[in-house]
């Protein structure tokens, strides 16, 4: 992986993986308290190469290859944070983070609260998540609802190269713990990256496409699918807006409700299961707050309520353009 250096105003084409690598590098250069730890993050540079070259530049102590034990990795990071460091943890794949769930829920999320603010947890937990890369079981879960349902955690997920850089920088700088969900099927997506550009802050949703007919509300790996669906919908006379949440916690009620009130029709799209999912929360909030502005029920387009399927079947599970367009058609609701 080529190395991005921080040169003011410099814009260059970058993959999302390179942007994440640059964000880690620039954060480590700026703040000696930033320490990376995880399985394979050192010499190998991570299985997705997100930490490529960082052990060489910052040493094995600041880019620490740990024993293979996720609870131990996160638990150790907690102690490091208690001593004033700013750990960034890599959980190799979404489903591999589950052994660390107790440390995450009982300690990372609650330590500030348990200690009346005396022990903040400035930990960033990077989790490659989601499907679409042909991974076998336990390599494609979308676990955002577990994290979003845990008070004390921020849950952030970039969908663009620029956000991958900016949101990761902001997450590492945050004094609160951030579950940073990396949409692994977008790791190799390319776009212009300006490391000096201003980035919308964590907690602010961004309209990626304006429209007059309805809004697709989405995040992470589903953003490109929604943009493609919006393009295709034009042929059917639908002018769709696409809203990228970027952050599930804090949740940007304000922007979401503004857009929904102005358009009156909304579809929530994500690839994780629908029951008890983030889409259910969004649909409920929108209905509670925008009911009199709605011309149709808020519709969810999600993965099925099944364990993540084998890779040769995953395309049936993941919401694609057609499933989104079917939902958009249902927005012509007459009551």
């Amino acid at each position, binding site marked *: 992986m080529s190395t991005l250096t921080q040169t003011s105003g410099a814009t260059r084409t970058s993959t999302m993986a390179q942007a994440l690598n640059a964000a880690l590098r620039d954060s480590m250069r700026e703040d000696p308290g930033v320490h990376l730890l995880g399985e394979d993050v050192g010499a190998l540079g991570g299985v997705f190469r997100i930490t490529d070259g960082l052990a060489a530049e910052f040493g094995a102590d600041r880019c620490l290859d740990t024993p293979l*034990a996720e609870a*131990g990795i996160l638990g*150790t990071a907690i102690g490091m944070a208690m001593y004033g460091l700013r750990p960034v943890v890599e959980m190799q794949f979404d489903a591999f983070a589950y052994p660390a769930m107790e440390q995450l829920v009982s300690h990372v999320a609650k330590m500030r609260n348990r200690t009346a603010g*005396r022990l903040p947890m400035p930990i960033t937990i990077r989790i490659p998540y989601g499907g679409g890369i042909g991974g076998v079981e336990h390599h494609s879960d979308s676990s955002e609802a577990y994290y979003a349902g845990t008070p004390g955690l921020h849950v952030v997920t970039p969908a663009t190269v620029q956000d991958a850089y900016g949101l990761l920088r902001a997450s590492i700088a945050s004094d609160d713990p951030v579950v940073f969900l990396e949409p692994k099927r977008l790791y190799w997506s390319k776009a212009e990256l300006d490391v000096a550009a201003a980035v919308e802050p964590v907690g602010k949703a961004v309209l990626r496409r304006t429209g007059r007919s309805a809004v697709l509300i989405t995040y992470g790996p589903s953003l490109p699918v929604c943009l493609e669906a919006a393009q295709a919908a034009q042929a059917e006379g639908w002018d769709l807006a696409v809203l990228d949440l970027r952050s599930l916690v*804090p949740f940007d009620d304000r922007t979401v409700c503004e857009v929904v009130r102005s358009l009156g029709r909304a579809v929530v799209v994500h690839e994780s299961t629908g029951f008890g999912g983030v889409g259910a929360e969004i649909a409920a909030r929108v209905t509670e707050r925008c009911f009199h502005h709605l011309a149709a029920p808020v519709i969810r387009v999600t993965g099925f309520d099944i364990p993540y399927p084998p890779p040769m079947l995953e395309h049936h599970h993941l919401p694609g353009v057609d499933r989104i367009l079917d939902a958009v058609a249902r927005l012509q609701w007459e009551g």
Partner: protein
Amino acid sequence: MTVLDHRPTAPVPGWLPGATSPRTDPSPLLPDSSPVRVLGTPAFQKADPELLLDLYRRLVVGRRYNQQATTLTKQGRLAVYPASTGQEACQVVAGSVLQPQDWLFPSYRDTLAVVSRGVDPLEALTLLRGNAHTGYDPVATRTAPLCTPLATQAPHAVGLAHAARLRGEPVVALAMLGDGGTSEGDFHEALNFAAVLNAPVVFLVQNNGYAISVPLTRQSAAPSLAHKAVGYGMPGRLVDGNDAPAVHAVLAEAVERARSGGGPTLVEALTYRLEAHTNADDATRYREDAEVTAWREHDPILLMERELRDCGLLDDAVAAAATEQGEQLAARMRAEFHAEPELDPASLFRHVYAEPTPQLLEQAAQLDAELAAEAGR
């Protein structure tokens, strides 16, 4: 014949050195076959008399603290109290063996250790009283919050000690666990990380015989819990947990070893919980009176007092002074806990995030309105 029958007794020709060959001679890591003792041994004569008297005084005051807290649960003044009665030798040593810059990582039963560390006795009880989670300042007192999930504080101790060592600061972390906690995965991950990182950590397991109702024989089949250290590449030490000077000697040595770069140690202290698991537990369902009676005769205070009187270090006046100090503490606890605590509902939203989310601000306003409506009724 199984494949195991083919296991070679001598190195296989061509066996590669390095990763797969034995790296450590286990024998120096193994615990002594019988627990370390000081009371009743020649080592007692060499012990510092001032240290012995200080330990005695702490034991007596600690016992009174345990008794008063247990009484307060019966009066409904504490939500719950897991007493360390019978385990005071471990508690008062763990709280006093550390230097000010060191960190203590207690479990829920280790309130007395927290008090012995210098934390205010009433602040140490807020979690168990139910009016706040952690009443003391963990940073100012270098004492982590009482940890209720089992063994999860052990990797925190490793991470903190590792961070301190990276900064070149001579800080040691002492993590306290029970015998039940050694069955949890976090215990094993913490030991492994500590050994691999050579972190300045001491793990103190107070083996009090039972994890609530489950006896040690159903908890572990190892020769001792201290033996578990060997598999991770650190020394295991076995000590009589009711022999305060012995616990002090073993822990002080482990702390010094950690501070001087020698790495982690696992200490198993053999002790006994004389009371039930908590006030909500009925210990008569799972253990015999005879067993409890035998352990009462091995009470850490009795053992200490007998020896100190035998050698003339302790007289009635010194004993009475210690008792009086305990009574004063108990009186302070009664006075404080019989008053209704001041509670602030707004505190619910105060420390969830550095900056509250819009959703929390809305909910705080909702609670405000509910309280105003109640007040106006």
